[in-house]
C-alpha cells in the first residue's frame, strides 16, 4: 500500500487534481459565459428587417409576414454567431476570397469620389482623341448573283449595260438573284459590312471608283455588282458627341489608377519572405 503512495504517477495525478481545484476556486469553471450565448435583437435590427422587406416589396410587411422574417433573421444570427465562436471563418477559403473582393472594391472607390469637370473632360479628350474615331463608312448598292447561276461573262455584260444606260441603283429591278441581303446600304461602317457580307467585302469597295457599276466582287454568298455612292473617310469624333463615353472611360482609368496605387502602397508595407525550394526559384537569375 505504501508502495502505491510512493509511485511517481500517483504524485503526478494528485498534483494535477490539486492544481485543477485551485484554478477552479480562483478563476471559476471555464464554461461558456452568458455573453457568448447572448444575442440582442433591438430596434436597429427591426429597422433593418423592415427596410429590407420594403425595398423588395415596396410596402410594409403584415404582422404574420414580419413574424416569419424575424424568425428567420434570428436563426441566421444564431448560426452566424455560432460559426464565428467555432472560428469557422479562420482560414476559410470563401471568407478569404470575399475579403479580397471587398478590398478590391474599396481600392476602386478611392479615386471616384469627386465629380468630373469640363476641364477634366477636355484634357482627357486631348489625351485620348485617337481612340474616338468615327470609322470609314460606305454607302453602296449591290446586285446579287448566286455562286453558279451566272457566268462571269454574263455578269460583265449586265454591268456594261447598266453603265451604258447609266442606270441608277434605285432603277434596277429584276436583275440578279433574290437574297435576304439588303439591296442598298446607307453610310455603313466597314466592320459592319464585313460582318454582313464576309470576305473583307469593305476593303474591296474602298478601292472602287464612285458612282458606276463595278465588279463582280465576291462575298460569302456569291458574286455582286456594286455601285458605290459615297465613301466617308475615318475621322475623329467631336468631344460633344462622345461625352458619355469619355466620362465613362475617365472614371474607369481613375479607378484603375487608384486601385494600382492602393495595392502598391499596401505591398510596400509588407515584407515577403520566401523559404525552402521556393526561395531558390524566386531568386534564381
Amino acid at each position, binding site marked *: 500500500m505504501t508502495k502505491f503512495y510512493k509511485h511517481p504517477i500517483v504524485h503526478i495525478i494528485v498534483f494535477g487534481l490539486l492544481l485543477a481545484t485551485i484554478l477552479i476556486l480562483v478563476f471559476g469553471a471555464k464554461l461558456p459565459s452568458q455573453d457568448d450565448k447572448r444575442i440582442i435583437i433591438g430596434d436597429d435590427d427591426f*429597422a*433593418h428587417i423592415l427596410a429590407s422587406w420594403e425595398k*423588395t416589396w415596396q410596402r410594409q410587411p403584415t404582422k404574420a409576414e414580419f413574424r416569419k422574417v424575424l424568425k428567420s433573421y434570428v436563426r441566421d444570427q444564431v448560426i452566424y454567431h455560432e460559426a*464565428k465562436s467555432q472560428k469557422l471563418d479562420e482560414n476559410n477559403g470563401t471568407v478569404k476570397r470575399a475579403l479580397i473582393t471587398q478590398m478590391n472594391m*474599396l481600392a476602386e472607390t*478611392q479615386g471616384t469620389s469627386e465629380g468630373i469637370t469640363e476641364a477634366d473632360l477636355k484634357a482627357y479628350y486631348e489625351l485620348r482623341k485617337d481612340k474616338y474615331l468615327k470609322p470609314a463608312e460606305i454607302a453602296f448598292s449591290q446586285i446579287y448573283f448566286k455562286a453558279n447561276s451566272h457566268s462571269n461573262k454574263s455578269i460583265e455584260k449586265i454591268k456594261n449595260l447598266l453603265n451604258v444606260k447609266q442606270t441608277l441603283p434605285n432603277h434596277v429591278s429584276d436583275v440578279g438573284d433574290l437574297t435576304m441581303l439588303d439591296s442598298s446600304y446607307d453610310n455603313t461602317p466597314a466592320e459592319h459590312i464585313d460582318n454582313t457580307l464576309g470576305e473583307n467585302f469593305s476593303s474591296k469597295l474602298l478601292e472602287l471608283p464612285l458612282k458606276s457599276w463595278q465588279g463582280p466582287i465576291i462575298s460569302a454568298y456569291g458574286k455582286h455588282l456594286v455601285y458605290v455612292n459615297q465613301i466617308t473617310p475615318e475621322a475623329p469624333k467631336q468631344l460633344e458627341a462622345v461625352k*458619355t463615353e469619355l466620362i465613362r472611360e475617365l472614371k474607369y482609368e481613375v479607378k484603375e489608377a487608384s486601385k494600382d496605387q*492602393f495595392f502598391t502602397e499596401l505591398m510596400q508595407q509588407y515584407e515577403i519572405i520566401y523559404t525552402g525550394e521556393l526561395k531558390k526559384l524566386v531568386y534564381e537569375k
Partner: protein
Amino acid sequence: MRKQLFFTYACLALSLTACKSEKEEAVISESALDTQSSSEVEVKVNPTNDVYWGETHLHTQLSADAGLFGNKLGLDAAYRFAKGEEVTSSTGIKAKINRPLDYLVITDHSDFMGFAEDIDKGAPNVLADAKGKEWYDGMKAGGQAATDAAFNLITTFSQGKMPAALSKDYSPGSEIYGRVWQNCIDAAEAHYNPGEFTTIIGYEWTSLVKGANMHRNVLFRDNGDKASQVEPMVTIAPVGSTDPLDLYAWMKNYEEKTGGSVLAIAHNGNLSNGIMFPVDAQYTGRKLDAKYVEERGKYEPLYEWTQIKGDGEAHPFLSPEDEFADYETWDDGNLDLTQGKSNDMLAKEYAREALKNGLLLEEKFGANPYKFGAIGSTDSHTTLTAVEEDNFYGKHISSEPSPERITEGIYLKTDIGTIEDTRLNSAGYTGVWAESNTREAIYDAMARKEVYASTGPRMTVRFFGGWEYTKDDLNSHDAVKHGYEKGVPMGGDLKPAQGAKAPTFMVSALKDAIGANLDRVQIIKGWLDENGKTHEKIYDVAWSGDRKINSDGRVKEDVGNTINIAEASYENSIGAPDLNAVWTDPDFDPKQPAFYYSRVIEIPTPRWVVYDAKKFGKEIPKGVETSNRERAYTSPIWYNAK
C-alpha cells in the same frame, strides 16, 4: 510594363486632382449625362426590323460563384468585351471577341450580389458612427492614412468587430446590397449607346431546389430611374423565395409601383430534374391551376433553349425519330450533380416537350403557361461572353483556355458522375428582330418573342406564318414586307383562318457571313389531338444539293462532312449559303391546337475541342465529340383551334 502602366495611371490621377482643385469648375451632373445619352443621338429605325445579336445571361465577379472562384472582372470588363475591346481575362489571357455583340444583359445572381462601401462617400449613417467617421476621415486624408484606414476597416470587419449599427447597415440585403445593385444599373446606363450598343438592366433569380435548377433571368425594359426603385428578388426566405409564383408577385408589384415592365427568362431546364415544366403540380406540391398557368405565360415569354451547360431543345428519349435531337445533351443529373437523372424527369425539362404540354394545359385551364420564344445564351461565369468555337473562354475561370482543359479539365465530379470540361457546349447567342438597336426596341421584340436562339453562328433567319403565302411572295424583293402584311412573324399567333384549308409558312435562312454553309431548314410541329394526347413531327422544307425528300417529308441523306481534325478546319464545298421555302402543313386539322417552329442546321464543323487540340498541340481524348451541328431555333408560331 506593369510599372510603366502604373506610372501612367498615377500621372493621370495626379493631373486630374490638379484639375479638381480649381474650385470654379462646375462639376458635371449625373442627370445631365443620362439625358445626353439617349435623346441627342439619331438612331436608325427599320420598320421591317433588323436582326441584332446579343447575350441575355452573363455573370461577372459580382456573382458569388464567379467572384469567389477567382473571376476578377466586373461589369465594366463585361461590357467592354462584348463591344469588341480587348480585355485581360482573370487567368491573364488577352481576350477579344471575334465580332462585337449588339446588346448585352448582365445577370448576376441576386443572392449575395457583391459588396460595396459607403465610407468613401461619407454617407450620413457612416459619419454618425464614431468608428465610421474615423475611417472616413482617414480615407479622405489620402495616401498612407487612407491605406491604413481601409486596412483597419477590413480587419475590423473580418474580426466581426464592426460597430453594431454599421454592421446592420452593411449586411447583405440592406444598404451595401442596394449600392451593388445601383452599381449594376449605373454600369448599364454608362455603356448604353442607343443605335450602337444596347444594355438591358437585369439579374438572375437563383432558385435552387435540392440542387435542381429553377433559375430565371429577370430583364427590365426600363432605365435606371425605375429599376433603382426596387432591389432584385432573392431566394432566401422569408423576404425571398424559391417559388416562381413569388417571383411573379415581385414582378407584378414592380410593374404596378413603377409603371415599368419586366420579363423573366427561365434557365435551360435540363438540370432541373423534372421540375422546370410541371404538368400536374409544382415542386412545392401545389397543384397547377389557372393562376399558375396565366402568370407563368404572362411573365415568362421566353425560355433558354441552349447554353454552355448543354442544349435543351429536344432529348433523344423524348424524340426518338429526330436524328438531330441528341445534341450537346447533358442528362447526368441536377445542377450540382447530387441527384442522378431518370427518364421520367425528361418530359418536364426540354423545350419541345414543354411546348406540347403547354397546349395540353391550355386545354385544361384556358391559358398556356409554356408559350415561350427561343433564347440562346452563354451563362458564362468568366465575365466574357465568348462562345465562338475557335474563341471559347469556358464556363468558369477553371475552364478558360489552357493546354490542359481538353485533357484534364473537370467541370463537376460527384458520387453520381463526372462531367469533363470537354462536354461544355460553346453556345449561344440570341438574334432579335427589332426596329432599332435601343433598349426599348430590343426588349419589346423579346416581349413579343420575335427572337431566335443560335448555338453560336449568326445566321439570319426569318420565319412567318399565315394562310396565303405563295412562292411569288418569297421570290420577290419585298418578301419581308409580304411576310408582315400577310401573316405574323416568329413568336406570333396565326390569325384566324379565312377559308384556307391549312396554314402556310415562309422561311428564309442565310448562313453566317463568316461561318459554315447550311445543311437544311426544318419546320417542327407539335399538336394536341382530340384525345388529349400530344404529338410532334419534323418536316424538312429546304435543303442543299439534290438530295431526295421521302413521302414522310424527310431528307434522310446526310449532307456530308468536310471537317479536317488535324487542321481544325472545314470547307463550304457542301451545303448552301442560303435556303428558303414556302411550306403548307400537309397534315393540318383545324380542330387541333398546334405550334410550329423552324430549326436551321449547318453542315458539320469542328467543335471547340478540335481548335484547342490544334492550338495547344494536344491529342483529343477518346470518346470526346469532335463534330458540331450548329443550329438556330426560331420562336414558334401558334395555331389556336378555338
